[in-house]
């Protein structure tokens, strides 16, 4: 992002004589990235199972009612945090590490730190989700992990981000690819928001309603800024890479970058919140502007995939396209629901849950799947994906998501419209929603099956091919030594 580049079609990253070969970069990322992705997939599966159990509670109120740890109020937050902190954030970290290395044309610096950090992170997740089931949840949505887990998570993230920052510092390219801007911003934003939330909500809780405002701010910044930044970084890298076209417009990417930074971080306060009027009003203004962000991203993506020149990795492309479509849907749902006349209907209904699910799972998780299916073969060094299993994962996840969120959104709108009439019984309206939620439970089941395929896909790389790694590693090390000694191999 230093000097403006001439618009002549010269290759953006001509390997300089000292730049590292791509295979070496990928190899340097192997252990941390695989660790993050595989542990993420495991947490994702666990979280989906918890979500399924929680969903069953809605239909059978006496299901598991003897144990406190398996109550709906504990299973639901546990599943949500497993999705966010167990999968989404490690996937973001893994994608970030690999993109810093690849786009900087440098091997990953201090991969050991990244591995330590990932281990800490997983420990934090284990303590956190266990803590929620044990009753130590903080109560705040998207920030339910107990304080002791939060410390471990922060330590883990800082270790990983040191590795990422050092890698970025050692980059060999002069012009930054747009994805790098997004990743650098995300890199320092997560520790900031997480530390603030820990400090003001857990360590030294502020007084009264300020807690809820800070919690809403944190949840918004995690789901609509951090995940958007990392997700868009992956999208802006993968779409050109898998279609062979150039990314449509550095300037458009710049516009998206600034809009997300300046405006999206102000969203997230519900319109009817018990806070002075200026807070939800500012939030509404920010959400209104995010309409432009959504359309800018849509424009960039559509113009990038037009007439793909050399399509590669169709599985990844499929996931990423679904992710971008979900991004647009989630963005529009958020903008529409921000208007006070609409939020009077959609607040406190299933509509909000549907929108969150489309944003976190439909956009970020699906883009992450696409990125993971792109990255893992490259860091492992060979292509070993079973196309049938990958396709099954995609369809189970996509159909599952649609089956989960469409009934939720419909139920939400129905509830909201009916609750406006004070003569209708709340119980009857609620019962109607629970009927629709049966379809959602089926959707969650489909998603669980998809995650199982995903985990198996990743494990085939890890378990079944560990033998080949040792051999490949030794051979590659020899090749590198020969190369640097000036011998052509």
């Amino acid at each position, binding site marked *: 992002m230093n000097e403006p580049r001439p618009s002549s079609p010269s290759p953006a990253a001509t390997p300089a004589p000292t730049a590292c070969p791509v295979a070496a970069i990928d190899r340097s990322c192997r252990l941390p990235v695989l660790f993050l992705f595989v542990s993420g997939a495991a947490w994702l599966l666990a979280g989906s199972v918890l979500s399924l159990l929680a969903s069953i509670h809605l239909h059978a109120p006496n299901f598991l009612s003897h144990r406190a740890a398996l109550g709906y109020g504990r299973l639901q937050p546990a599943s949500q945090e497993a999705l966010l902190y167990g999968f989404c954030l490690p996937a973001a970290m893994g994608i970030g590490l690999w993109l810093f290395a690849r786009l900087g044309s440098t091997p990953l610096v201090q991969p050991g730190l990244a591995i330590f950090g990932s281990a800490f992170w997983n420990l934090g997740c284990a303590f956190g989700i266990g803590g929620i089931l044990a009753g130590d949840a903080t109560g705040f949505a998207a920030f339910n992990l107990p304080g002791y887990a939060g410390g471990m998570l922060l330590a883990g993230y800082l270790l990983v981000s040191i590795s990422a920052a050092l890698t970025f510092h050692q980059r060999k390219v002069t012009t930054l*690819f747009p994805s790098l801007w997004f990743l650098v911003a995300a890199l320092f934003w997560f520790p900031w928001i997480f530390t603030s939330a820990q400090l003001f909500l857990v360590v030294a809780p502020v007084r009264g309603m300020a807690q809820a405002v800070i919690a809403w701010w944190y949840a918004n910044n995690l789901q609509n800024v951090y995940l958007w930044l990392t997700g868009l970084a992956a999208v802006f890298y993968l779409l050109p890479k898998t279609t062979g076209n150039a990314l449509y417009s550095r300037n458009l990417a710049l516009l998206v970058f600034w809009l997300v930074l300046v405006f999206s971080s102000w969203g997230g306060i519900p319109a009817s919140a018990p806070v002075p009027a200026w807070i939800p009003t500012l939030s509404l203004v920010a959400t209104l502007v995010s309409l432009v962000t959504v359309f800018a991203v849509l424009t960039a993506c559509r113009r990038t995939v037009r007439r793909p020149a050399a399509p590669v990795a169709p599985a990844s492309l499929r996931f990423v396209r679904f992710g971008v479509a979900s991004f647009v849907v989630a963005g529009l749902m958020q903008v529409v629901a921000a208007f006070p006349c609409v939020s009077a209907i959609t607040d406190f209904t299933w509509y909000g849950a549907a929108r969150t699910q489309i944003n976190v799972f439909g956009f970020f998780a699906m883009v992450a799947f696409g990125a993971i299916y792109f990255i893992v073969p490259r860091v492992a060094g060979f292509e070993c994906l079973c196309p049938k299993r990958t396709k099954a994962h995609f369809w189970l996840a996509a159909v599952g998501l649609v089956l989960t969120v469409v009934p939720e959104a419909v139920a939400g709108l129905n509830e909201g419209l009916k609750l406006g009439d004070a003569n209708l019984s709340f119980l009857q309206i609620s019962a109607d929603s629970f009927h629709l939620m049966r379809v959602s439970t089926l959707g969650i089941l489909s998603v669980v099956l998809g995650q199982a395929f995903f985990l198996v896909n990743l494990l085939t790389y890890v378990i079944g091919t560990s033998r080949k790694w040792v051999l490949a590693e030794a051979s590659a090390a020899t090749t590198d030594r020969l190369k640097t000694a000036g011998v052509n191999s």
Partner: protein
Amino acid sequence: MSPDRVQPLPLPVESSEPKVAEDAVPIVLVVVFLILFFCGLVYFDQRGAWFKPEVYVPYASITELQAFQPPTGGINLERGKALYESICGLCHNNDGTGKPNQAPPFAGSEWALGNPNRMIRIPLNGLNGSIKVKDTDWALSMPAMGAALSDEDLSAVLSYIRTSWGNKATPITSDMVKAVRGAVGTRTQMWTVEQLNAVQ
């Protein structure tokens, strides 16, 4: 799931890292952004109450909120404060702590917190003789400082005294003042503590 069932294939030759085109941003996006931002700012100006902490949705400003305050039932504590400071505060101090050899305190005073009928009579006709306030004897004389005040005004002053400086007693209404005025009739003599204690 044996690994050898799917033969690992070599990866395709990797093209260079993706390129970025230098096209311009579609102008419609910029225009829409400016319009939305403008509308948003106008909305904040109209409904955001400019950061006032007391104004909640659906009220748009302090003025609107004040228009919906219930009538205070005749007890205007602000007026009571103004009257207190101009009439009583000269001797009893504006912070209700009293002045030695001049006037006893009101803050925490059992006479201010106690029976309203006794409290109303003091400013109506004045007080003479020794009075014990918070374990201290005050042997002074107070003229009928409240005789010229209307029922509403006197009730406002006394309510202000009963609800300020840590005092937490129920306010005195203008009806109560009116009733006491009717009961004392045309009395001009100052009260003594013994006479006040006889009042129920």
